């Protein structure tokens, strides 16, 4: 059975060029970049090269890039570190209702520690309300943290406008760009971004490495104490091979973003168009155009997401869902609920997320498989029976 991977928003595979770039940094170039000797110096040189690759991708200076253990660490550092670094200015933070848990749960913890957090609402397409943002800013606001693009529904936020608003009010602006790297063109200076989080494994680097861009002059408190790595701001021996992988991967991912977006969105649109046309009682979640090229998130009425995932998995297809049943909690995705979806529609959501390796043929196979899975589950569903019976009654 041919397996089809359409869960690239969860993680991506390490591609061969990235693996090849990393290969020497396990057995041959193994020095500690903090060491003064030749072994250390060659590792240091490679790490600094990766730092430059990341800086180039964001139009930042290499001295503004800090490697971390993952996107979550970058988010924790930016939010928590800024909250405490600016405690004299105030204890109010602004974020959105649809952030990743790395932000939401960090903010919730800060609330327990005496900070105040405003969670901005979003519209039905998942776009953050900029009027509400301006209104929420107070003299004691120290940080605005809004994601560049949402991981579940793929909605791309008006980052440049948020940056402008933040700057006008003299508030620091952090963006979780974990899903956006390689799909959104970043120019951190032009976009007034003070901090930006990324995670290597979302763009074909390995898991366990991330980075945080921190604009020169901004100084969040350090999260991890120890040695003097990362200019004294993030202790812990550098994960050299993974850092090299992240550098190579971001160079590839940002080499030609318009072409990447055109190719990937063609496959995405095939998925969206065919599903909405060929499967009744479906709806697209998120924004139709202001959307990551690789994100297709659709709700299927009368059925539940986890059972769809299982059905697809048995056909060798990997997808994801916002249903509670797949998360281990009782509530479906906080993102879909924030967008105003009723619980039962959120339970029936399916996310297919693409990378440049997915093809139109795969999209067709997935839709064909999905039609079978959805039909079968609807034939089991009492909700579908009730709906059809009600329709007949209405006609009669």
């Amino acid at each position, binding site marked *: 059975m041919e397996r089809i991977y359409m869960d690239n928003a969860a993680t991506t595979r390490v591609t061969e060029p990235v693996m090849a770039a990393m290969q020497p940094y396990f057995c041959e170039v193994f020095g500690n970049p903090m060491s003064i000797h030749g072994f250390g110096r060659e590792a240091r040189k490679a790490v600094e090269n990766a730092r430059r690759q990341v800086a180039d991708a964001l139009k930042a200076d290499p001295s503004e890039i800090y490697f971390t253990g993952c996107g979550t660490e970058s988010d924790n550092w930016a939010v928590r570190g800024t909250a405490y670094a600016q405690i004299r200015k105030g204890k109010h933070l602004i974020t959105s209702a649809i952030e990743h848990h790395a932000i939401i749960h960090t903010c919730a913890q800060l609330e327990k520690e005496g900070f105040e957090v405003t969670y901005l609402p979003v519209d039905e397409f998942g776009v953050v309300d900029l009027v509400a943002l301006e209104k929420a800013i107070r003299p004691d606001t120290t940080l605005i943290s809004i994601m560049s693009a949402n991981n579940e529904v793929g909605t791309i936020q008006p980052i440049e406008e948020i940056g402008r608003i933040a700057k006008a009010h003299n508030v620091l602006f952090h963006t979780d760009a974990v899903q956006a790297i390689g799909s959104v063109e970043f120019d951190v200076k032009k976009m007034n971004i003070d901090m930006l989080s990324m995670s290597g494994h979302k763009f074909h680097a390995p898991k366990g490495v991330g980075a945080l861009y921190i604009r020169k002059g901004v100084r969040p408190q350090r999260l991890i104490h120890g040695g003097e790595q990362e200019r004294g701001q993030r202790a812990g021996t550098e994960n050299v091979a993974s850092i090299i992988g992240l550098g190579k991967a971001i160079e590839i991912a940002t080499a030609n973003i318009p072409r990447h977006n055109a190719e990937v969105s063609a496959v995405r649109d095939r998925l969206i168009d065919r599903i909405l046309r060929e499967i009744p009682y479906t709806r697209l979640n998120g924004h139709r155009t202001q959307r990551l090229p690789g994100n297709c998130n659709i709700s299927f009425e009368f059925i539940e997401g986890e059972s769809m995932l299982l059905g697809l998995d048995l056909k060798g297809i990997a997808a994801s869902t916002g249903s509670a049943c797949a998360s281990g909690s009782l509530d479906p995705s906080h993102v879909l609920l924030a967008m105003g979806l009723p619980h039962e529609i959120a*339970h029936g959501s399916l996310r297919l997320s693409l990378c440049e390796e997915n093809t139109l043929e795969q999209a067709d196979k997935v839709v064909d498989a999905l039609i079978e899975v959805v039909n079968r589950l609807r034939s089991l569903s009492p909700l579908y029976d009730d709906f059809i019976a009600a329709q007949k009654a209405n006609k009669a």
Partner: protein
Amino acid sequence: MNYTEQVMDHFMNPRNVGEIENASGVGTVGNAKCGDIMKIYIKVKDNIIEDVKFKTFGCGAAIATSSKATEMVKGMTIDEALTVTNKMVAEALGGLPPVKIHCSVLAEEALRAAIQDYKDKLARGENPDEVPSVEPEEIQYV
């Protein structure tokens, strides 16, 4: 989510799917908001569950536990069927992940609701074998 082979088998090839016209009892539990609804129909003759069918909206475990529960009680007397617990259903499936125990509880509840519906009809002096079953509370679908 790691499901046992038995769970996957009942998810893929559910037993006793459907409805029973003029059922002796119908039980519906759960709600769409929580993401699972189970509806179990029983046909009782001489105090024995002659036939049983289900329809389920829910995750893989919800579908598998409905299927397994109906399979277990088919042919049982009413009293025997009332001794079937969610734990027995889960065990018969080789176990469920902890977060999915909730689904097996629903299966037990749906079965008991169907039996209660049957008993209520008997108490009202209706002969469930002849009288069409009264549909339980309509499920609100938004």
